[in-house]
């Protein structure tokens, strides 16, 4: 039970946080209460490695998110390599990472929530208030937004998780009140993020791309592939074209315009272009001519 024999420069993974952690002395273990909890786990589990899931949760609590430092400590405590811990953290999507905002919005985008534009309603509302689309973070790092897969509360869509809390039917006034509360807690005015440009989260973050919308796209007709398309490289156009007309306009739209432009054109990113036009009826079998 001597997991603290840690060499500071031992197995540290290449990280962007090296500078930050160099300033403060490197920590080699959790706070005493969490270490006590860890020892409980170590006794209960058949081996230390199997306690890894729970120890990572401890690390998440301790550091607020799973930083590289947290991963190193966890690896030491559980007798596994840092690479293994990193593999775990990147495999499981629910762990909070440093590139997530302090308040991490996770909006369920799976079929049951996406029906009747529920997911979109929540996302549009978050975008309106905080200026962040899925995969983005406010520049001050306070808020981030993600689309995630099923959160298992499908009868009350849309389901949103934030700050280790679970919310259902999270749209309209309920979500508005929650956003108000969060902004107030952070001492920000209600319109703090109006017109502020968001930043993209770490590209490694396993979120669903912003254009992955369930509904609404058909009403505008065929969407042009844009530079955010995961199957095309940036700047590469779509392979299929219907009429020569649209070719006159560029196939790719600058990211900033696409992200912020509320009134962008039909070949822009259409994640939230339809804020005003939730034509529920229009989507059924709407054929592009």
């Amino acid at each position: 039970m001597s997991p603290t024999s840690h060499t500071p420069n031992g197995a540290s993974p290449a990280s962007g946080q090296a500078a930050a952690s160099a300033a403060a002395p490197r920590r080699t273990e959790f706070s005493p209460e969490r270490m006590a909890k860890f020892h409980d786990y170590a006794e209960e589990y058949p081996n230390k490695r199997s306690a890894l899931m729970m120890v990572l949760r401890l690390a998440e609590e301790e550091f607020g998110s799973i930083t590289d430092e947290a991963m190193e400590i966890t690896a030491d405590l559980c007798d596994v390599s840092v690479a293994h811990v990193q593999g775990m953290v990147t495999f499981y999507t629910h762990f909070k990472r440093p590139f997530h905002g302090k308040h991490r919005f996770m909006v369920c985008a799976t079929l049951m929530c996406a029906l009747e534009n529920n997911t979109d309603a929540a996302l549009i509302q978050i975008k309106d208030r905080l200026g962040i689309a899925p995969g983005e973070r406010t520049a001050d790092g306070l808020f981030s937004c993600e689309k995630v897969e099923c959160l298992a509360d499908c009868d009350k869509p849309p389901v949103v998780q934030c700050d280790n809390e679970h919310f259902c039917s999270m749209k309209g006034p309920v979500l508005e009140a929650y956003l108000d509360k969060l902004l107030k807690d952070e001492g920000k005015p209600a319109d703090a993020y109006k017109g502020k440009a968001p930043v993209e989260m770490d590209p490694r973050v396993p979120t669903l791309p912003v254009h992955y919308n369930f509904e609404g796209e058909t009403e505008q007709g065929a969407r042009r592939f844009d530079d955010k398309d995961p199957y095309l490289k940036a700047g590469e156009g779509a392979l299929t074209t219907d009429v020569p007309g649209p070719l006159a306009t560029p196939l790719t739209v600058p990211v900033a315009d696409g992200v912020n432009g509320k009134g962008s054109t039909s070949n822009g990113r259409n994640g939230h272009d339809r804020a005003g036009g939730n034509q529920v009826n229009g989507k059924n079998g709407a054929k592009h001519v």
Partner: protein
Amino acid sequence: MSDANKPNPAGSGDVPPQKKADESAAQKAAGSPQPAPVAAGAANAAATPPSAAAPAPAAAPADPKPKVPFSPILTKHINEPDSHTLAHYQARGGYETAKAHIGVTDPGALIKLVDDSGLRGRGGAGFPTGKKWSFLAKGTGKPIYLAVNGDESEPGTFKDRYILEKDPHQLVEGVILTCFAIGSKHAFIYLRGEFILGFQRLDAAVQEAKAKGFVGKKIFGKDVDLTITVVRGAGAYICGEETGMLSSIEGGRGYPKIKPPFPAVSGLFGCPTIVNNVETISAVTHIVKNGAAWHKQWGTEKSPGFKIFCLSGAVKKPGVYEVPLGITMREMIDQYGGGLKDGRKLKAVIPGGLSAPVLTPEMVEKCTLDYESLASLGSMLGSGGITVLDEQVDMISAIYNTMRFYHHESCGQCTPCREGTGWLEKVAHRFHHNEGHQGDVELLGDIAKNMRGRTICVLADAAAMPMQSYLQHFKKDFEAKVKETAFVEKQRTYRDEITPTAKTITATGAGPSALEVGSNQGTQRSGENKDRG
């Protein structure tokens, strides 16, 4: 956390209204008893005419059983305040069953009891629980583990959430009984990471039981030890697969393992392991308490008992409803779910979680909610997550969303799944944007067919099955979105050139004989020569 369970959520100060699933359930419950007895939790559904008429569906003539009135069992108390506490559970006779059986009854008799009850796994596969227990490798000298699967990651399913958040002690008691029956001293309960409240409540329940001496060393004063460990996952669909879950408990990525050896022979840490769903284990508590015959009075011949169904989608009253197996799908949708919203028309029903093949309205008419009926319709009961899709839903969007889910959740171990789910998603993506290529419908079917049965676990099948059923029942929707393009046309021509079909060979004079007598080596060679020439 306990105040989240108060019936009046308006009083819970600093949190927004509708915080947590249970508050909104409590809201529904508060409003429901008088006008609409079918609450979200179905707790009050017992006395209503629909459930009294339930167990004799017209579509199941093979069931000669008399009607037995059913009232919810697993979800009976979920709308009561503090139902998750030990005091509440003991006040309604909790842990009495375990007390009576632990260290007293012969474990073999308990296994036989569960086997006789005909209880089938409620997690999705529907494997008989008693049988599974009897497969356990004996005399290996290794410890035996029980792993309870509370990952509940199948979209459309949220039944375990209610058990874990509202009545976790019945699960703990079930675990105690099960462990005694199979001779296990250590049980793991694996919950998905998204069950925040469920984890807190279950962990608290285990601690409470520990303090009372129901869990730990020498439980109930008998010479039986039991440790219960609650593990919280972190958001991976694949950990709902039993061996994936075991990998996760072992402290690795949730990679499923090759079967055989089945977990009952070599599971957790290489030791014999029984894996059961939360609902199954909870049902064990009640079966041991009331007997096998009691359990068999409901349901059908081959699917006895009751099950929690999760109703979502375009129905007026979505929620969890505990009903005897064998009621009709129509009854579930119309009487429990209150029919479709705004008088919309039914388009399709996903009967058992997202991976279950869809049912068309015609199939829904003859569908009853039991394992056999759904299997005969080419679908499955699965985890009991019923999603109702109305006429407004664009089926192409729905399948695209589904494929995106599976692509995102594929663990990446097996190529057919890792690549196949991606391909399905890409092609569905084309259809979704009205840019389907000629031949894409066939391509989708081809990919789906080649994914099935070729991977370690069934995630590939889970992705391929809905795709195949959508293609079968909604082919027109796909075809309406095909758009032929010059590029594809060119590609096709090129493909035809490099792989000549019989027709083109005939046309070019090679003659069909070369193909027909292809088994003859000599002819084959001469055929090759001809090609070169």
